[in-house]
């Protein structure tokens, strides 16, 4: 089918041979010891930073000679300090990152050469390198000043937002590939659910009246559609969650405290058309995946009319979206399988990095030239770690 091939072209690029990555050897306290303290980090949606490190160590793009490297990778896990509930606390992350950058700038000359312009970091937390889960505080902090020039690989993407730097690569959140594979059902099972969603509508703990959480969009969804038989929406998490998504035509992906969610990955993998309700969101690998053609975008202000919008989509448009979603390279690009497979998210990240090459000559600083302010930021960040 023509549709399938055109959508998968860029996704099938092979990054091997197009770039070389040098992996810094940091002391174990920055990576292995952190994971050793809490193995839950390997399963939550921020696990991409850990798996990317493991992938790069054995990848063909890795080079042991830093002189010939195009990109430098610093394996520091900043999203692995978990609460008892399993949510990452970002309070130490700026110090950890800063300490890691200090380490690499003192032990290797490559950071100071460009002040990090040919370095990339994985920051998969809620608001990326702003290192906070609350949007107001994250905006106030801004991106860590030391990362001003580096390339950030993050899950957060929203247009004209402080925490999205130009040139960042947006990646999907981590979703466990084996678990999703284990819940596959035969594709001839008829899709009988029209709209499916499982998750919170009101965050009772932090915002009981609603209006802050998801900018009121999820609460609006619940209030408008709780009585609508076409909408299978609820807060209960069933054991057949993955199977149900495979029996649904549309899967809602509304924003939460942050605009991105693993539902997008699950929708793409299970062939359920994602309905993205997050204004100005930037979706993963937007330069390689034609999200407009695969998903449905609904403005937050249009949520009360969601049923009208979805039922008025022409049937051949829906069928076309399903055909594009059935493309296996699309599903592969959303996943982080272990061991890595061609076309998966790891390779898409490398493709993204390769597309930014060659580096502009201006990134190399002249001797004595300094632009980074090492003392910028809140006082608490400057404490050593």
């Amino acid at each position: 089918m023509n549709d399938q091939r055109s959508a998968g072209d860029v996704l099938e690029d092979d990054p091997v041979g197009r770039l070389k990555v040098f992996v810094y050897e940091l002391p174990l306290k920055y990576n292995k010891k952190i994971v050793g303290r809490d193995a839950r980090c390997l399963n939550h949606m921020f696990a991409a930073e850990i798996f990317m490190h493991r992938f790069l160590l054995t990848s063909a793009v890795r080079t042991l000679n830093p002189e010939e490297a195009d990109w430098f990778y610093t394996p520091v896990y900043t999203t692995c300090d978990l609460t008892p509930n399993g949510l990452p606390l970002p309070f130490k992350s700026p110090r950890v990152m800063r300490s890691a950058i200090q380490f690499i700038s003192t032990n290797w000359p490559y950071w100071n050469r460009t002040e990090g312009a040919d370095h990339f970091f994985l920051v998969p937390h809620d608001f990326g390198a702003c290192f906070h889960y609350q949007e107001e505080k994250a905006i106030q902090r801004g991106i860590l000043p030391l990362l001003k020039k580096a390339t950030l690989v993050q899950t957060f993407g929203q247009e004209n937002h402080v925490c999205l730097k130009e040139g960042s690569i947006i990646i999907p959140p981590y979703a466990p590939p084996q678990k999703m594979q284990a819940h596959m059902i035969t594709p001839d099972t008829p899709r009988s659910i029209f709209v499916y969603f499982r998750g919170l509508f009101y965050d009772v703990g932090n915002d009981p009246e609603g209006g802050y959480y998801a900018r009121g969009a999820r609460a609006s969804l619940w209030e408008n559609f709780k009585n609508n038989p076409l909408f299978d929406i609820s807060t209960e998490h069933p054991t057949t969650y993955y199977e149900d998504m495979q029996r649904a035509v549309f899967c809602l992906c509304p924003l939460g405290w942050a605009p991105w969610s693993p539902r997008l990955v699950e929708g793409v993998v299970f062939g359920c058309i994602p309905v993205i309700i997050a204004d100005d969101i930037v979706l993963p690998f937007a330069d390689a995946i034609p999200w407009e053609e695969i998903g449905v975008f609904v403005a937050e202000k249009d949520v009360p009319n969601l049923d009208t919008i979805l039922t008025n989509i022409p049937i051949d448009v829906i069928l076309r979206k399903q055909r594009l979603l059935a493309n296996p390279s699309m599903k592969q690009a959303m996943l982080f399988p272990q061991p890595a497979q061609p076309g998966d998210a790891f390779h898409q990240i490398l493709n993204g990095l390769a597309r930014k090459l060659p580096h502009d000559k201006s990134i190399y600083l002249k001797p004595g030239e300094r632009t980074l302010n090492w003392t910028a930021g809140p006082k608490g960040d400057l404490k050593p770690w």
Partner: protein
Amino acid sequence: MFHSHGTRRSNAAARSSASGGLEGGGVGSPAASSASEGSSFRPSASTFWLLLHGLCCLISLFLGFRFSRLIFVLLFSNTIYTYTTTTTTTITSTRTETLTVSFPLTHTPPIETAVKPNNSAIELSDKMSNQGSSHSQVVVGRHGIRIRPWPHPDPTEVMRAHRIIERVQQEQRKWYGVKSPRPLIVITPTYARTFQALHLTGLIHCLRNVPYPVTWIVVEAGGVTNETASLLARSRVQFLHIPFHEKMPVEWAERHLTENRMRLLGLRVIRERNMDGIVLFADDSNVHSLDLFDEIQKVQWMGSVSVGILAHSGGPDRTLLTEDEKLNPPIPVQGPACNSSGHLIGWHTFNSIPYSEKSATFVGESATVLPGKMEWSGFVFNARMIWKEAEEGRPEWVKDLDKIGENGEEIESPLALVNDASFVEPLGDCGKKVMLWWMRVEARADSKFPPGWIIDPPLEIVVSAKRTPWQESDDLAGSKLEQDDRRFTRPKSRSSSKRKNTLPGQDN
């Protein structure tokens, strides 16, 4: 706003403590605050907060939501953030929105008011953002929850959604289902009797749901009757109503044989007309699963599926299982048996030995009805197998249909149609999946039923209302009796009592 209020109060307290006088300068503050504040500052601070909290509780009671938390957030956020102006404007404008959320019936929720805070926030986000780009549309802070005035489904849209689902499922079948589906030819022997409507209605609805083209050959014993014809006419299935000259006998053994002959007649019709497709034998009292029809599309020449045998007696089950049987209960399934590599090696048949003493001989007898050795319904085959001309590819192990039954011998099972039974293909995961069930439930042969199940003229049998199971109250019993008698003797009079009639024909 509240800062100033607070300072006024504490100023009042300071003045009163300094001067030792009575009233503080607090204009709007409750007098109690200044009065209770003595000379020391410590207790005044805690009582101040207590009273502030009390004030907030009162306001919350009035407004209907938790007001204090909001204010405290504001108060403390003032010390940390620099853009309080934005948040206060957001709060004030959206306070009205949250009010309307809690009273959705009286106010129509304003859908547009959320636009208001944008203006001030836009300027601020310009200042905050490092990019020099155009203004952001998305605002941080509290937003209203938009609810439309009539948050209920619209029937036209629901229908459209169902059509979308149908089309999606059709496409799924096209992609993942059977690639080139063949039409089905279903042969059903039947005859008019009390339970015919029950059985045929189930079968009709099942055939209507089959996603492939169906031609239904109904062979009726005793010739074509109006009963059957009217059922078929309403069925919306493409059918052929074939009369069979014999009447259906009353004995079960004879009935099985007659049915076999009727099925052969059906096969001869297919042969004469050279109908193409897959032949399936659906007895009218059998129950089929829709998976069966998808599975039989896989048949090449002749296939066999497992049939669940639901042999039951009319009364309570009196078969006492032996100890051995209790440990290994007999599986009531008839069908192909395979070896580990999936090849057909034999047949499972229904173990009828426990029932042999107590089986039914007459139709409608309340004893267990036993199936034949191999039920016809468990076999399907390609219609080309019985065509006259030897089609290319028709296997030699198939007997010619004309030669069967010409000597008057009885055909027990479709295996008589083939020379070599080992060529039969086992379907349904080698017989492990049971997709249809054999059942025989019939009324007594002499039981009467209203023709066409329409009660016309009204029944002559009258059931007095006195005999209905519900209790009557004593004081009303007498008057009701009279009314009932009047009603039943003169059917034309309108009944005044609201008593529910058991007979539809009585109401005028």
